[in-house]
């Protein structure tokens, strides 16, 4: 059969493409490879591109701080184009041919899930996602379907949804319309938001789901506007979100806006026009202010001449650093050891290490001495629970003048109290 010949040909080509034969050796083969899968083209392209910048920065910091077990880390980035088939193929290639020790990135849950269930978990390779929020991952972990190889550095949408509901009640909004993106992220957020809001007082008068990549969202905006709400909640990504907010404001919608975390980006504020966002507030996960957050901001700003505010950027940095630390703690670089070491970067009472190359160097020294560490990252303190989820503090942001500003933060304790109040 012709395709069998073809397969043979493919084998030869593949062999040429992979330069590192697997060697059975004690100690890692240099460089240590870390795989990244991000949507760099397609509708999530603008989001993925900035996240990849953050990942590259983190890898630089790891290398400047001493690498992994004396080896430099090589970051191999692949584009999933927002297509699951492409993402799975890339993951399989990274794991089998490039022999990466771990994978990070993966934005939409629709791409992360197939990578997890068909590549990462069966091959026992840890997958640390920066951005996939679907509740499904928690369910799968509880059922033991992930083998414990899945981690994510951003809390599930619940934290955000509850925090924004609390502020909506505090500001005295009565009738809220919601326009949300029709993905697992949007639907999950809205479900939790409605649950919280109804418990706390205000009413959701209309929810409108929108599909990405429409030429215009005027129709959706009109439906939400028809109820004459006194506040609106946008769950969107910066590009669609800007279109929608512009249409909302032009059509005379209220400027009492609640915005989700993805809209905390200078690009969004600039596109809409800051003067229309003075009454808006949004929330974001963690990013509790503090020296480690500020250090990351400064370093990112210096490198890319851009603010790191935007979806997934802080989280991706922590994903890479968490892996870098865990790989150094792990006795060897098998998937099992790395998985089992990830929670050792958050030892209670350990010496606090922060962001940037110097802090990474400090952490390596501590690890070498066998001392416990506690990583406080670009998103504040990071604690993975049994399902690989992080619980988080929330932050309320607003627009002051032309710029994004932090209004205040809700600590983990505040959030726990809030969850208790809502979930009973």
């Amino acid at each position, binding site marked *: 059969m012709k395709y069998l010949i073809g397969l043979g040909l493919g084998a030869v080509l593949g062999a040429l493409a992979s330069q590192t034969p697997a060697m059975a050796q004690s100690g890692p083969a240099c460089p240590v490879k870390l795989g990244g899968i991000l949507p760099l*083209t397609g509708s999530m392209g603008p989001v993925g591109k900035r996240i990849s910048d953050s990942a590259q920065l983190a890898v630089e910091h790891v290398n400047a701080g001493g690498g992994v077990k004396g080896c430099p880390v090589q970051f191999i980035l692949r584009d999933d184009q927002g297509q699951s088939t492409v993402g799975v193929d890339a993951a399989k290639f990274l794991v089998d041919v490039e022999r990466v020790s771990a994978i990070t990135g993966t934005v939409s849950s629709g791409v992360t899930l197939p990578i997890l269930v068909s590549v990462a978990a069966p091959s026992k390779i840890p997958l640390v996602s920066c951005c996939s929020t679907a509740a499904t991952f928690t369910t799968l972990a509880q059922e033991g379907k992930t083998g414990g190889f899945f981690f994510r550095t951003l809390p599930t949408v619940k934290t955000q949804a509850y925090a924004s509901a609390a502020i909506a009640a505090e500001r005295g909004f009565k009738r809220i319309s919601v326009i949300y993106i029709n993905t697992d992220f949007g639907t999950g957020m809205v479900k939790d938001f409605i649950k919280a809001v109804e418990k706390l007082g205000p009413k959701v008068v209309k929810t409108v789901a929108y599909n990405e990549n429409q030429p*215009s969202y*005027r129709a*959706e905006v009109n*439906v939400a506007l028809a109820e004459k709400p006194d506040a609106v909640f946008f769950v969107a990504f910066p590009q669609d979100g800007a279109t929608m907010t512009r249409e909302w404001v*032009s059509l005379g919608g209220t400027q009492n806006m609640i915005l989700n975390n993805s809209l905390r980006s200078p690009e969004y504020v600039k596109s809409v026009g800051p003067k*229309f966002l003075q009454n808006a507030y949004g929330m974001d996960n963690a990013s509790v202010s503090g020296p480690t957050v500020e250090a990351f901001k400064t370093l990112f700003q210096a490198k890319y001449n851009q603010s790191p505010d935007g979806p997934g950027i802080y989280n991706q940095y922590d994903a890479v650093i968490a892996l870098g630390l865990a790989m150094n703690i792990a006795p060897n670089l098998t998937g099992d050891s790395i998985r089992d070491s990830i929670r050792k970067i958050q030892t209670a009472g350990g010496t606090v290490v922060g962001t940037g190359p110097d802090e990474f160097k400090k952490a390596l020294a501590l690890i070498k001495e066998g001392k416990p560490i506690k990583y406080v990252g670009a998103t504040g303190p990071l604690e993975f629970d049994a399902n690989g989820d992080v619980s988080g503090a929330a932050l309320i942001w607003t627009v002051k003048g032309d710029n994004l500003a932090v209004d205040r933060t809700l600590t983990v304790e505040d959030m726990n109290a809030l969850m208790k109040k809502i979930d009973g």
Partner: protein
Amino acid sequence: MIGQAIADGFLTGAIIALGAIGVSLSLQILRFANFSHSELLTWGAYIAVTFVSFATAGVSVGPLSFGWQLLAATAFAAAGTALLAILVDWLVFGPLRNRGANHLTLVFASFGAALILRNLVLLIWGPEARYYTNELQIAVEVFPDVRMLPDQIFVLALAFAIVLALHLFLRFSRLGMAMRAMAESPALARICGVEIGKVIRWTWILSGALAAMAGVFSGLTVQLRPEMGFNLLLPLFTAAILGGGGSLIGAVIGGLAVGLAENLSVLVIPAGYKAAVPFLLLLAVLFLRPQGLFGAAERS
């Protein structure tokens, strides 16, 4: 609410109509469904944004968010896109036509051309959304409960003027008559001494220029993205077929029908299904009146 949906429907419809005229021309004169036509909209919009980034969108004139520079940019984009259309024809469609390829081969080629054109935009201008101007307008209430932006009213009027001018051109100019003759019967047109090459060239020029204008208007009232044209593909084709392929007024009415149907549909069905509305309309028309609303019965 319903009034607002109708007003928005007219605006979306006018932009779709401008794009659909090009689809319609290529269906009738070049005799194939050009799936890469929607990418010409994207190119037009981006060429204009490049022009604007050199010249700025200009000081706002009256209530509009832009100045005369944007109109200059539109003209520039129209010319640029027309050239691009001719270039694509010269590289891809022309050779296939000369070889006497099946018209469906041209359709496949247009699939490929679309992919290339769309990703070139991504490569050249990057994936971020862009705007001609960051000014945000506040809508004025034109009728009770019907709000429109001054820009939108301007776009509607301009689109109407363009269609009228095109109608006069096709009706009375020599070239316009040649194009109509070619649409009726290429063989007869050739016998009567119509220069086929020239007609084809002008068909591309017109489609390209109109697509560019549709792209700029869409970018002006919404935003610019590399996928903006591709996302209009189904509406454009629906409008052209609805109008009966080849008839100018048909394409315009088809465009308005699609725009209205999309915007009115959200009153009765969940907004999540909005993108399927043009298709359902198309299916209904093809089933009930295969020659289109305004097309003559098929001559075989």
